């Protein structure tokens, strides 16, 4: 080992993390208590979903206060779990509201108010460029993070408004490709465990598979949303 080994990775956690830990935990608990009391007082269901994000931030604080590489790696699953729950719960909320409206005999449409589209040059040019930048940066990042960034880019692109070129059938094909990509990702993992000496191909399979999968899933969600609102 080279003489710098201890600065590469120390054997013990540096003192600075140990000193900051109690402060971080106290701040996290205060954040959580503020968020939870807001949840108790709130009556609007939609606001409740938003307020719940505050206790979730407190959770990130508690995890990241540990200050190791492991904690950094654990934040990602925590974040994804809360994102997934947010997605499912908000869909159920929309569905419930529609069912209630139907019972009352109102129109079940989400957007039953008319609005004029805002005509601004910036909205037409800036958003597509942003989405393209997002996609390119996501492809550079690769992996799960890259997939999320690229997917956000595709979502923006789909929500901008009228886009030509990509039909519904195209996105259905893409959904098929994302399934294949998921299989690639799992196969990559399998190679990791069975034959670790071929790690490079495993890495590329899993890294490439997951970016296609996540990005296209976001895209699929975007096309579903657009179909619903632009009908």
């Amino acid at each position, binding site marked *: 080992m080279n003489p710098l080994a201890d600065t590469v990775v120390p054997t013990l956690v540096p003192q600075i993390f140990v000193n900051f830990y109690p402060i971080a935990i106290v701040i996290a608990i205060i954040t959580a208590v503020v968020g939870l009391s807001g949840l108790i007082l709130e009556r609007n269901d939609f606001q409740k979903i938003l307020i719940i994000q505050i206790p979730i931030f407190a959770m990130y604080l*508690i995890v990241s206060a540990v200050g190791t590489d492991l904690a950094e790696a654990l934040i990602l699953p925590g974040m994804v779990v809360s994102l997934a729950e947010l997605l499912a719960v908000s869909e159920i909320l929309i569905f419930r509201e529609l069912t209630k409206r139907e019972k009352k005999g109102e129109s079940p449409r989400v957007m039953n108010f008319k609005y004029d589209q805002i005509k601004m040059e910036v909205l037409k040019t800036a958003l597509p460029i942003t989405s393209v930048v997002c996609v390119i940066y996501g492809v550079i990042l690769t992996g799960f993070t890259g997939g999320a960034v690229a997917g956000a880019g595709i979502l923006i692109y789909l929500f901008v408004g009228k886009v030509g070129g990509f039909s519904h059938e195209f996105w259905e094909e893409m959904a098929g490709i994302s399934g294949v990509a998921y299989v690639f990702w799992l196969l990559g993992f399998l190679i990791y465990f069975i034959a670790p000496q071929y790690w490079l191909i495993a890495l590329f399979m899993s890294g490439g598979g997951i970016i296609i999968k996540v990005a296209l899933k976001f895209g699929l969600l975007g096309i579903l949303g657009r179909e619903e609102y632009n009908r």
Partner: protein
Amino acid sequence: MNDIMDLNGFVIGHIPFADIVPYLTPFSLALVSTIVVFTVFLALSNPELRSVARFREDTVRTVTVEKKEARFRRFMTILCGISLIGVVTTGDLFNFALFVSLTGITNMGIFAGIKDSHVLDAAFQYGLVMMICTLPLFGGVAITLAKTGTLSLGVLAGMPSNPILNISRTLILVGAVGEGALAPFFATKVEMIRAKGAPYINMMHLSSLMVFTRVIEILFILG
């Protein structure tokens, strides 16, 4: 602290996925076989045919689940069964928290597409509880990690107990109770069970039972 051997007998086998080591003991073997039998039973059975009689009407209607909907629910039920097997066999604290979250989200998925505002309201409230639960569940795990420096249940079993661990134990218990919709919080569940499509909703009861059994074992291991 309690050793795994004292709690549920000798370890039959383990799968070394690097840091995460799921293990099987006679106790968890019994739980796994229960889950497998129950899930297979539910996956093979057809959805119920509920008959509805109304006052001042001379007819009895039968209400059934659409084929597509039944298929979706069956998929969620099977996924729930798989995640429950993970819950009872996993040998890592963080992994346990993730499996419990997966159980919660599949439970919600079983009810997601029912067009009944009462059921949907209950499912939504359960979803809110689930979202709050990420705080105590992952927070408790992180506090344990900070105090002991490890997440593996096999190593944690040999650590001495202390007051901080009691806090994280309480948090993990509260988190699992909310995520599995256990005893004091199952009012949401009772509302959800009014949904049609009988065999699949039974999965919720099994998941409550299994999550509860496993969380008690983990509390014993931690303290």
